[in-house]
């Protein structure tokens, strides 16, 4: 294959580039470079010694000519810390079994039970090939993959764009298919079955069932339009539909079973941990749909972007998201970009803070706070400084998530505890991108 050196910027390439999400020819005053490298170093830290994530992401994009480019992105994540197990605080000392029936941990009276065995390294690699098809069409095909100790993802995706109306309108369609393999540490627990103690005599009998790899298939389709509204404004609208089938349960999450009057934990049976906890169970399919709209506006010096997302799914979750950024171009070399985001969601139908002793067992139940009624906001800023070849940036964000700390299910003792603890996280990101 002969590699053509990209020729200098042309207006056609410039106008094409701003219309789609597919990376298109960058606007350059001189000869366009071959390679673009984008790197980010991320720190994500939650309060109360919860999750800490250190992450490195590097993308390389090579333009072969004005019409063709490819992109590779490598991400390495290292996660440590504790996550809420789903069990609720109690007035007694609670003992839980870690994954694999070992590594039990003890939670003091009144404290939120956190699973402290959370530790993972994730490596993700994705790539795409993007090409123009004549003057008005472009396509991109790509793959995605990621590997964790207990999780493997492989996926393919594609996207097609076509310009209309003198490139004032771009219509796009996309599809993605992913197949994920889940291999929980210590085997897959049976949904809504009790948590056993460390010396689990039943474990060997169950080993065959518990060590089978579980899969999850995800199909996404997306279509939308980008419309130039004026010399200064651009609007993007898209609708996406995602269908997941397979094992969608979190194998590490549990629910407390409590007395319906006192709210005290119910004693476990022989072989079980001292109190009764059930593993969570979610439906094995989920259909999500989202509507996304983004408006971008250029001022003489600055610009702004605001987007909205409505999502709902057949688990009963409905969410609304608003995200706004204002880019203050301080001078030719530096900018400051404040950012605000607000998010709110309703609980999944099967979300339960606790299960009550004596109630009929539900088909599905999860106490995962991420499926609860809650709201969250993010406030932060990004500062960027251009250099001769590239750009440095730092981004600092504050994230706060709050659910109802004492929902209606907070009977007896539970009324005095924080059943859905708030979450505060700091996101710090350092970026450097350059071209050559």
């Amino acid at each position, binding site marked *: 294959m002969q590699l053509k050196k990209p020729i200098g910027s042309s*207006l056609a390439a410039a106008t094409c580039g701003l219309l789609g999400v597919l990376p298109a020819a960058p606007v350059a005053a001189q000869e366009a470079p071959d390679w673009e490298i984008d790197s980010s170093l991320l720190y994500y830290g939650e309060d109360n010694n919860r999750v800490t994530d250190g992450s490195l992401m590097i993308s390389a994009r090579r333009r072969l000519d004005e019409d063709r480019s490819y992109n590779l992105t490598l991400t390495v994540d290292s996660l440590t810390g504790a996550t809420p197990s789903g069990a609720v605080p109690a007035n007694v000392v609670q003992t839980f079994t870690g994954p694999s029936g070992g590594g039990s941990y003890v939670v003091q009276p009144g404290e939120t039970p956190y699973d402290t065995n959370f530790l993972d390294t994730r490596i993700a690699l994705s790539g795409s090939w993007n090409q123009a098809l004549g003057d008005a069409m472009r396509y991109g095909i790509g793959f995605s993959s990621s590997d964790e100790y207990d999780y493997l993802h492989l996926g393919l995706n594609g996207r097609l764009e076509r310009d209309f109306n*003198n490139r004032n309108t771009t219509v796009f369609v996309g599809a993605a298919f992913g197949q994920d393999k889940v291999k929980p540490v210590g085997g897959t627990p049976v949904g809504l079955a009790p948590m056993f103690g460390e010396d689990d005599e039943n474990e060997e009998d169950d080993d065959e069932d518990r060590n089978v790899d579980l899969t999850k298939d995800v199909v996404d389709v997306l279509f939308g339009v980008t419309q130039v509204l004026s*010399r200064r404004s651009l609007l993007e609208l898209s609708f*996406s539909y*995602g269908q997941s089938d397979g094992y969608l349960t979190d194998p590490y999450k549990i629910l407390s079973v409590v007395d319906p009057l006192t709210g005290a934990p119910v004693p476990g049976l022989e072989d079980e941990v001292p109190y009764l906890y059930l593993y969570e169970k979610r439906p094995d399919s989920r259909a999500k749909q989202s509507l996304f709209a*983004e408006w971008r506006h250029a001022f003489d010096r600055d610009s702004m972007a605001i987007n909205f*997302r*409505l999502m709902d799914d057949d688990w009963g979750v409905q969410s609304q998201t608003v995200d706004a950024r204002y880019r203050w171009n301080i001078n030719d070399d530096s900018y400051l970009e404040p950012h605000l985001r607000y998010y709110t969601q309703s609980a999944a139908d099967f979300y339960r803070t606790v299960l009550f002793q004596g109630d009929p067992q539900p088909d599905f139940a999860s106490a995962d706070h991420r499926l609860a009624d809650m709201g969250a906001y993010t406030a932060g800023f990004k500062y960027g400084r251009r250099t001769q070849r590239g750009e440095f940036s730092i981004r600092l964000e504050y994230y706060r998530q709050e659910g109802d700390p004492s929902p209606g299910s907070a009977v007896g003792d539970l009324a005095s505890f924080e059943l859905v603890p708030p979450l505060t996280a700091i996101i710090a990101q350092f*970026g450097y991108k350059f071209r050559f």
Partner: protein
Amino acid sequence: MNRRLQIAILALAVAVAAGCAEVKPWERDLHARADMKADQHDAAIDDHIYFSKEASSGGRGFAGGGCGCN
């Protein structure tokens, strides 16, 4: 699809159709500015964080997943 989504789609489609004054190629200087495009890394990192902490995902791109974090 619920009614609220249908109404929102319709309203936005009307807004787009109404606002389509054609902009000529030589009037694209402001659109061509780098700050008129989302930063791909920031978007990917944010999607990943919020996907692992909230019940929603997707919108801008694929809802996907590819992570045991949720």
